[in-house]
Structure formats: C-alpha cells, structure tokens
C-alpha cells in the first residue's frame, strides 16, 4: 500500500515537470495557433544557457536561471518578431516546417558546441534532500519544488491572462486577430510578447529538467512529445487543464514503471491515447469552440 501511495505521489510530482514543459507550448498555441515543434529543443538550449552561466560565473542553477530568463525573453521576442511572425497566416504548414527546421538547427548547433556528452545542472544538497511524511513515505524536495513551480508558473500566467490589459489583448487576439487589430492591438507585437513569455517558462522548465536528470543536445523531441500530450489531454488553451494533463502522464508513467520499468514511457502514451478516445477535445476544452 505504502509503495503504491509513494508511486502515485512520485507520478504527481513528475507531472509537475511535464506541466512545465507543456505550459510554454500551450501558451504559444493558445494565442497564435502556432505549434512550436522546436519547443523541446528550446528547453534543452535553455538548459545549456543555464549551464554556461553556472560554469562561467560560478552560480547555482537557480541564480543562473534568473539571469538567463531576461536574455531568453529577448530571444523569444526576436525569434517571433523576425522569423515566426512571417510564417503565421491562414496556412498552418509554414510554422510547422519552420519550427521543425529550427529543431534540427538547434540540436546540431548544440552538438557542435557542447558535444554529445551528458550534462547536468548540479544543485548540491537539495538534490538529495527529502521531506518525510511519515508512514515510510518521503517526498524529494526537488520534486516538490518542481510541482510547486509548475503551479506557480500557471498561476502567474493565469494572472497575466485574466487580470491584465496585456492578457485581455492575448485572449482577444486569440479569438479574432482581425477584429483585435481594430481595437488598436498590434498582433505581431502581441505574438512576440507571447513567445517571449513562453521562453521564460521554457527557462524554468530547463532548470528542473537539468537538475532532475542528465540532458544532452538530442533529448528535446521527447520532451516535446510529453508536452504535447499534456496539452492535448488538458484541452487546448486551458492552462489548468495542462497541469492536469501533465499529472495524468506523470502518474501513468510512474504506475507503468512500478509494474515493469520497461513500461514507463509506454504507459504515459497509453494514458494519452485513452483520453483521446474518451474525450477527444481534452478534459477541459475552452468554452465557445
């Protein structure tokens, strides 16, 4: 019994990581209908940025991420402004092709610069710290922090979306980009801000990706897949749904691994398929669509 509760809790916390992966993807898709196929690679790229800052300045991973975030915000804005905005239109194919190309460029660029060696963001004592809940169950501090950060990120994004003028502009542009322009909203600027914010979320994801496990330049696409599944399970455009989606995949993977370690990844995908069959529009589809 204790073992199963433990498995469940581990799964929920792993789900926090997947929700972090998914939040950035969900944000970009929700506002621009843009599927960023390079999302996973941007997470890996950001992890390397954090790594470089850590080694160069002797910082711990959290401080390095704090430092990297504004730079990544700028990178996101520029990426959308100079490249992705040109691909957005009636046709859904150009953004897919361009971000697919970016994915290949980032992977190979990182391989060229950092080689295929596995890296890690070393965080010191916190990596092995845990909090005992009694009854033989303990939660890893790092895992708990991951989940808390996922919830925090989604809370902040929801505040931006529903409590600020910028958020109103995000939702309006998502609803009807043509009429949004009639309100004086410059769609391209709004889109660039959305990608910039998504890159900050990516920086947070990268922090926990790198502290939790090893990473190398090629692992991006698999992170994209988990992110994708979490977004679809949650229902497109719903951030809390994305958290639920991440947790469902996390729990499924943990339970799968508990039954047989080989089943871990497969169980996550099966859970995704099951939701797709039972609720094709996801668990929390946005109203009016």
């Amino acid at each position, binding site marked *: 019994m204790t073992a199963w509760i433990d498995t469940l809790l581990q799964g929920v916390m792993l789900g926090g990581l997947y929700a972090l992966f998914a939040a950035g993807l969900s944000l970009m898709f929700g506002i621009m209908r843009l599927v960023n196929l390079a999302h996973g690679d941007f997470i890996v790229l950001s992890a390397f940025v954090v790594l470089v800052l850590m080694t160069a300045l002797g910082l711990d991973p959290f401080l390095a991420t704090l430092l990297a975030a504004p730079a990544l915000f700028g990178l996101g804005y520029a990426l959308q402004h100079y490249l992705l905005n040109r691909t957005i239109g009636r046709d859904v194919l150009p953004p897919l092709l361009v971000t697919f190309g970016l994915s290949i460029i980032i992977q190979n660029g990182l391989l060229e610069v950092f080689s295929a060696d596995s890296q890690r963001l070393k965080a010191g004592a916190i990596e092995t710290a845990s909090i005992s809940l009694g009854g033989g169950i303990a939660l890893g501090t790092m895992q708990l922090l991951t989940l808390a950060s996922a919830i925090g990120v989604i809370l902040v994004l929801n505040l931006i979306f529903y409590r600020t*003028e910028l958020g*109103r*502009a995000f*939702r*309006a542009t*998502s*609803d*009807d980009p*043509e*009429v*949004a*322009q*009639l*309100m*004086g*909203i*410059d769609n391209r600027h709004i889109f660039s801000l959305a990608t910039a914010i998504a890159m900050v979320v990516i920086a947070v994801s990268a922090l926990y990706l790198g502290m939790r496990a090893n990473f190398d330049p090629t692992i991006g696409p698999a992170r994209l897949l988990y992110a994708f599944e979490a977004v679809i399970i949650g229902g497109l455009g719903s951030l809390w749904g994305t958290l639920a989606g991440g947790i469902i995949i996390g729990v499924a993977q943990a339970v799968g691994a508990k039954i047989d370690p080989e089943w871990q990844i497969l169980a996550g995908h099966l859970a995704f398929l099951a939701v797709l069959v039972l609720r094709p529009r996801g668990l929390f589809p*946005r*109203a*009016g669509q």
Partner: protein
Amino acid sequence: MALIETRGLTAFYGDFQALYGIDLRLEEGETLAIIGANGAGKSTFLKTIAGLLAATPESVVYAGRPIGGLSAPQIVRLGISLVPEGRRLFPSLSVEENLAIGAYGRHDCGYWSLARIYELFPALAARRRAPSHTLSGGEQQMAAIGRALMANPRVLLCDEVSLGLAPVVIRNIYAALPRIKASGSSIILVEQDIVQALQVANRVYCFQEGRMSLEGRPAELSRDQIHTAYFGA
C-alpha cells in the same frame, strides 16, 4: 476641409477588384449612409478605410493627412473606429472586457467611459459580467458599438448594425445615434435597411458593383433614382 475624403479608392481581394475608384467626402459632424445591394462593396469600403485592406496613401485622406495603407491599429489610434459586420465580439471575453478592450493602450480621457456606455445602453450594465456569446443579438450589437466608442473616435464606421435584428431592437440602437453624434463623432453607416438609413443620414451614397451610383441628400432623392442606383437600370 473634409474629415475623411477618399480619392479614386480601389480595393482588391487577391485578383478580384471590389472597388473601382470611390470618391466620397465626410464632413465634420455629418452622418453619411452608404446603401447598396449585397456585394456592392460597402463593407469593403469601410474595411479599407479602417486599414484592414490595402490602399494607396493618397486614396484616403483624414483631416488633411494621407492615411491609405496604414495598419488598422494605427488608424484606430488616429480616431477612426469600425463596428464590424456581424458584431464579432470576443467570445472568451466578458461584456465589460469587450468594452474595455476598445480603449486598449489608451490612457487619455475622452467622453466615453464604461459608465457612459452603460448609460447609453442600460441593457449592457446588467450583463457586464456575462460571457459575450450569451448576449442576445441586439445586446451584442450594443456591445460592439460600445466597444468601438471606447476608443473615443472622431469617425465611427458602422457596418450593417441592423442586420438580423428585430425592428424594435433596431429602433433602440438607432436611438443612441444622436447621443453618439453629440459626443463629437461623425458617422458613416453602411445599411441594407434603406428607410432607416434615409431617416438618420445627412447625405446618402449608393454603391453598385464597386462603383458609386448615386449621391445626395435624402430629401432630394426620388424613389426611382434610388431604385435605379440600387439595382441598376
């Protein structure tokens, strides 16, 4: 000097030409009506002025300044607001948010505020927290007009505000017109409802297949003239 003047305005959807050289003037304080059959280019005309369709700079002049081809956000900032055909409220925004977004990026205090819009259309005040897609057609139209007014426009462009509404609702909406004019807006109405248009307009233009077929003051136009201009000879 006219508030808005178009000079040989043309508009295209890809290879299809929708407007063939429209010359129109809107004077300060005027209410213009543009009538015409479906596909005559009335909506295209408003969209082009509002910056949603391309135009050459000199083909639209606003208070002496060429504005043709500016982007829609630039044009709304200059003081021209469009109430689009079919209301097109933002479905994921509440009624109040729809109104508030009309003043996006503005911190100047003009005549129109949320309070004044609710005063103009009391029906909206009661539904302010409701999702916009739950409103009735008439309420949606009021919200769409209110949203455009929130930008405190000098020129209000209204595209088919009576479309699909019951006569009593249309009367309600048109009853707001004097107050809107008094706030300092000049108005261009695109209307299918000719009787309604002739009642409120200072001058009327009729479009036919992308060209201007008639212009005049309502009192000076005969039924036959309008009939010919509307349907062709």
